[in-house]
């Protein structure tokens, strides 16, 4: 095992983490401000990917598709908030989970009805094709580096938005005390719609970026949704900073586990068994990590105020 391989795997972990951050940021923001558990967040990820693939196929431009994914996911998010989710804020979490789970089914079958049952094609734009030489690593896929950069820019942008703008101030106020900012005359329902649409747009962006790397198909959002929930539980529900650290931690632990565990077990077991057992343990690793963190920090690493 070479140092180059180790660095490459760290980059892979970082890239996975950054992608998870785009999902988890919206999820944690929505929970923090509105107190809503949104299981349909993965469907917004899927909507972003489908919008990007459909527009890219029609126009031939990935970049137009990327813009379309933001618009489509934000619009779908705003629509869902106004029509359905708004009625759920006052109800308990179980009702929210039931309603948003129903939304997953409706959005999945709706997408299948619109686009058919077969996976769509979405390719990396020609500008970002291929691999680039990286010092100490050899070749590394350019597009993955771009995803890391985009994720970092979004993280910085979100920080500035929340720390420095009036909207951000209202979001922070909403996290601290919902009733009070409504009483102070802030139009709370518009704020909720904006936050939901922002979260949805981030999920849509993640979907479009990742859609070019994998298969654009119905149900692609659910595996990512589960990981995003692990991330916000580790990071502390409601905290953007927690989402960033949690996402990168989960990305790196998951990637390194998949890579190192079979190798470690191979020292004591025959190849076939070490591969199967190592793979099985690697898939549990982030959940073990989550359990450990919850045992010592029950409210996550960066718990927001209650």
């Amino acid at each position, binding site marked *: 095992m*070479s140092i180059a391989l180790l660095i490459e795997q760290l980059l892979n972990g970082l890239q996975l983490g950054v992608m998870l951050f785009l999902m988890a940021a919206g999820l944690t923001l929505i929970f923090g401000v509105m107190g809503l558990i949104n299981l349909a967040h993965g469907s917004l990820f899927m909507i972003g990917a489908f919008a990007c693939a459909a527009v890219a196929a029609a126009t031939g431009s990935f970049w137009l598709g990327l813009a379309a994914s933001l618009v489509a996911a934000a619009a779908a998010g705003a629509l869902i908030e106004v029509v359905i989710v708004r009625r759920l804020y006052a109800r308990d979490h179980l009702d929210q989970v039931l309603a948003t789970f129903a939304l997953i089914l409706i959005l999945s079958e709706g997408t299948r009805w619109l686009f058919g*049952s*077969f996976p769509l094609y979405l390719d990396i734009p020609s500008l970002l094709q291929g691999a680039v030489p990286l010092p100490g690593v050899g070749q590394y896929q350019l597009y993955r580096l771009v995803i890391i950069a985009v994720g970092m820019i979004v993280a910085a942008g979100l920080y500035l938005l929340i720390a420095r703008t009036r909207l951000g101030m209202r979001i922070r106020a909403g996290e601290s005390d919902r009733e009070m900012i409504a009483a102070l005359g802030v139009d709370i329902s518009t704020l909720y719609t904006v936050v939901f649409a922002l979260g949805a747009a981030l999920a849509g962006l993640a979907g479009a970026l990742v859609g070019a790397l*994998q*298969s654009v198909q*119905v149900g692609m959002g659910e595996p990512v949704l589960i990981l995003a929930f692990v991330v916000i539980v580790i990071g502390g529900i409601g905290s953007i900073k927690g989402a960033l650290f949690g996402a990168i931690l989960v990305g790196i632990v998951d990637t390194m586990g998949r890579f190192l565990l079979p190798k470690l077990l191979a020292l004591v077991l025959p190849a076939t068994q070490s591969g*199967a057992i190592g793979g*099985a343990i690697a*898939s549990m690793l982030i959940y073990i990590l989550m359990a450990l963190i919850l045992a010592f920090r029950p409210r996550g690493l960066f718990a927001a105020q209650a």
Partner: protein
Amino acid sequence: MKKILASSIFGLSMALSSVVMAEPVKIGVITTLSGGGAGLGVDVRDAFVLAVKQSGNEDIELVIEDDAQKPELAVQLAEKMIQSDKVDLMTGIIWSNLAMAVVPSAVAQEVIYLSPNAGPSQLAGDKCSPNYFNVAYQNDNFHEAMGEYANQDYKKTFILAPNYPAGKDSLTGFKRYYKGELAGELYTQVGQTDYAAEIAQIRDSGADSVFFFLPGGMGISFMKQYAQSGVNIPVLGPGFSFSQDVLPAVGDAALGVKNSSSWSKDLDNEANKKFVEAFQAEYNRLPSLYAAQSWDTANLIVSALSKASVKDKDAFREALKAADFASVRGSFKFNNNNHPIQDIYVREVVKEGDVLTNKIIATAFEQHGDAYASECKM
């Protein structure tokens, strides 16, 4: 002359009377029509419906249900079909885990099940049944073919598959015929979408080729990421990841990949030409391997119905076992365990105009059965 005429009129009237007297036959089709795996089920359903329509047999009544790729739902649907719809035959299941949940109890209730795709090793070996016919393949077959083919050019192959029973069957099948050394053997998570960690290990392993079995969206993700990674080692795989349902989503990344299959759209026989033409005319897309297997399943049933009544189970099973139908795969017959003995080909992904498709470049096995037939006491 008179005698010939008389006998032929007699024969004709017999044939006519058997049509007139034929009782309705109910076939239950449980397949995946929603969710991520729906593309495969839609092909199975469409080909089956079209084959029945083209056969002109109006006694066949289809009961089609969607299992959403969930074993528990498939079991409920099967019970409903057997108990309340009273189906005579069942077919349609795509996935091995669903087949394992449904088939043993269905065949124990004397319903004949014909598999258009899944072929778990248990059902080919000690759990084989006279009521279970596999018209597709035994799960190991395509992987065995790739192992055999890899011997020609490669000495150090890196192999990977998802960590579930069919994934293990796959790598076992590959290793059964592959004589070279393994550069690495990996089991990935089921439903995994990112393969950066695995591709990095392939790059580092010094392999001269990669064999992977990653069905559905997993394979699409792997191929797209592999093509972009700058690793230029040749890729081999079973036909599932290069079937007509996924090729458009993989795109040019699949060009040139060698894959194994019992069927290809360019197989040169009358039945296949008719099938490809009819399917394209009806649905305006190229058929996949799953469509071909389903088409054969329907035609096998139609052929058996012309020989025996479905109510006479023994005679009907015998008529099925004879496999007296024009398979789109050319020669096709059943082994002692009711699994196919057929040729397995190596195909290469090529571009015809704008459309990605496969072309046969070699025959890996002629008249190939499966490794579990000897365990079947039947």
